[in-house]
């Protein structure tokens, strides 16, 4: 230990941060970033090992995995629009939805394989089936879903084997909602505080976000006369997404904080504005071709921003020991040790 001299200006020669605090409440106080936000919970004092994170942050590449969350949702809900368009006789709506689903799921698969540490071993995903692993369940789901959407799209483009195409379209619509929502379980089934604590509402957020993305694509690509269901789905999806997100943040307490700070905050605010704006635009003037295109673009971008925002907020919550230690400490105290 060095000698320290106390002067009129304070303590000289003190080396800050060298002494770890003792016990549960001795830690430094963290100051909130993001002025203007109302704190949801008071700042918590806590101990940590030199401020180091307790958890390992996800090794997933944001573009691959957040991109996959987005594309998977886009594909899953597009399959619903494709089947609906097909059954109700809206070929102008069904065709872009089928192509969108096939394109999005193909890109998803590429992103998923690219994200692997050993891409050549991607088939090991189908080595076992484990219900305890959302990634295993998802792999099998995609293994069934992707060929169906590709068949639906191929028959649409070729204009042949229509019966096979119809069957594939309907079958992909059965799996589509699962593809769109299981990704929420994929994130929640981790120790990452801001992902895990939202495990009840996150599937609904993702379901709504998938609906807005798919309706955005349909609005942009389908003739306005046939895009009525897409406009309605945009509004319903936006309501589900924004409502569920609000409920989720209220229920999460401290672990909702990463959603309100830094880059995730910007992304999620943008997502909110784009989704709400896009849905409103679709509802009021979706019959105008150019405005429908703008609404579609806003909805597509908004959904992507939401997925990236949720992804980055989770990573931020894993990087700060506060979000691991404080809720666990509170849980212990509630239980009376």
């Amino acid at each position, binding site marked *: 230990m060095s000698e320290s001299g106390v002067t009129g200006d304070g303590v000289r020669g003190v080396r800050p941060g060298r002494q770890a605090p003792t016990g549960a409440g001795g830690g430094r106080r963290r100051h909130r970033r993001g002025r203007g936000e109302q704190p949801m919970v008071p700042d918590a004092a806590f101990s940590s*090992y*030199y401020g180091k994170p307790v958890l390992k942050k996800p090794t997933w590449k944001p573009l691959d995995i957040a991109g996959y969350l987005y594309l998977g949702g886009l594909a899953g809900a597009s399959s619903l629009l494709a089947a609906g368009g097909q059954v109700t006789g809206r070929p102008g709506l069904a065709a872009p939805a089928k192509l969108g689903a096939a394109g999005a799921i193909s890109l998803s698969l590429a992103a998923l394989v690219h994200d692997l540490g050993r891409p050549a*071993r991607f088939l090991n995903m189908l080595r076992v089936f484990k219900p305890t692993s959302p990634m295993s369940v998802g792999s099998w789901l995609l293994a069934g879903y992707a060929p169906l959407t590709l068949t639906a799209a191929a028959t649409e483009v070729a204009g042949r084997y229509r019966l096979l195409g119809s069957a594939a379209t309907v079958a992909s619509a059965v799996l589509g909602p699962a593809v769109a929502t299981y990704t929420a379980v994929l994130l929640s089934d981790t120790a990452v505080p801001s992902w895990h604590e939202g495990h009840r509402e996150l599937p609904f957020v993702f379901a709504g976000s998938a609906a807005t993305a798919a309706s955005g694509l349909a609005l942009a690509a389908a003739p306005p006369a046939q895009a009525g269901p897409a406009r309605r789905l945009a509004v319903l999806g936006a309501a*589900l997404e924004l409502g569920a997100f609000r409920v989720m943040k209220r229920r999460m307490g401290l672990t909702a904080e990463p959603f309100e700070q830094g880059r995730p905050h910007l992304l999620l605010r943008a997502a909110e504005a784009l989704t709400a704006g896009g849905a409103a635009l679709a509802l009021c003037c979706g019959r105008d071709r150019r405005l429908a295109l703008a609404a579609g673009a806003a909805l597509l971008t908004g959904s992507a921003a939401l997925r990236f925002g949720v992804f980055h907020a989770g990573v931020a919550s894993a990087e700060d020991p506060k979000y691991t230690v404080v809720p666990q400490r509170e849980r212990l105290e509630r239980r009376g040790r």
Partner: protein
Amino acid sequence: MRDGDEDRGRLWYGPQPDVAGDSGYPDAPPRMGFFTDTSVCIGCKACEVACKEWNAIPEDGLVWTGMSYDNTQGLGADTWRHVAFIEQRKPFGGQEPGVAHEDVDVFAAAARLGTDASSPGPGATAPPPGRAPEGAPAGQISPLSPDGRTELRWLMSSDVCKHCTHAACLDVCPTGALFRTEFGTVVVQEDICNGCGYCVPACPYGVIDQREDDGRVWKCTLCYDRLGVGMEPACAKSCPTDSIQFGPLDELRERAQARVAQLHAAGVPDARLYGESPEDGVGGDGAFFLLLDEPEVYGLPPDPVVTTRDLPAMWRHAALAAGSLLALALGSFARRPR
């Protein structure tokens, strides 16, 4: 979300007395584990070195942290034992070893070496059998120092993979690369791991990680190769103070309880076990600890819970959400059929 926890049995949560049997080993040996008694850890890092050498773990960067003696910083793909150093302003408690010997003239003592019974010559440093060193109460830990010069203490603790009873890494692994051994430990099969990285954020202790140039994940194997031939893991073998103890988990738990009682009696009220209870959020750790402060001070989570405990609830909510999405789509088409 606590509903159905009991019905779910021992598959994903709660006490599980027979982990190996539950994983399909009919005649499994007793569950093996570590008891790391940090009250006798001297921070020598022999365990870190032994682990690296035995398992041929690559160098992972010598970074100067400037925060303590700890430049290793934490467990990771290339660090399977990590010694934490914590410098605290806190009374030593019963650990006061009385290291200041101002009243002893070492040169005079050296001159007397070998001349009388109380000062045996070189090679005879241990006290005679059955007798404690002078001034030390036999079979006990030194009591509190009377003058209380105890403003600083060091905590040192060798961290390791906990080999949880309910291991989240194993649960979420989509390839089956992570598996439960007959000893009840959790090991990665490196010829199967495809580097999906799911186990990394799933671990509630932040243990397992991806090796960057390799792409696969790595962690402590509890020296599965050594266990298979009846040897103890390299870290435990190398520990000079027996801070790291290896053995059947039942026996270690008994030993740990006795040690905590001994420390409490000796005036170290802070001593507590961490990860020992089968009732905790991960069903008890295969590698548990005796700590002298709150777990988070050592970088350990105070109340870890295996994420899979909530998985049934997650699947239920996802199914409801999928149903909602389907309902929204039906609603969108149902309104004005053409």
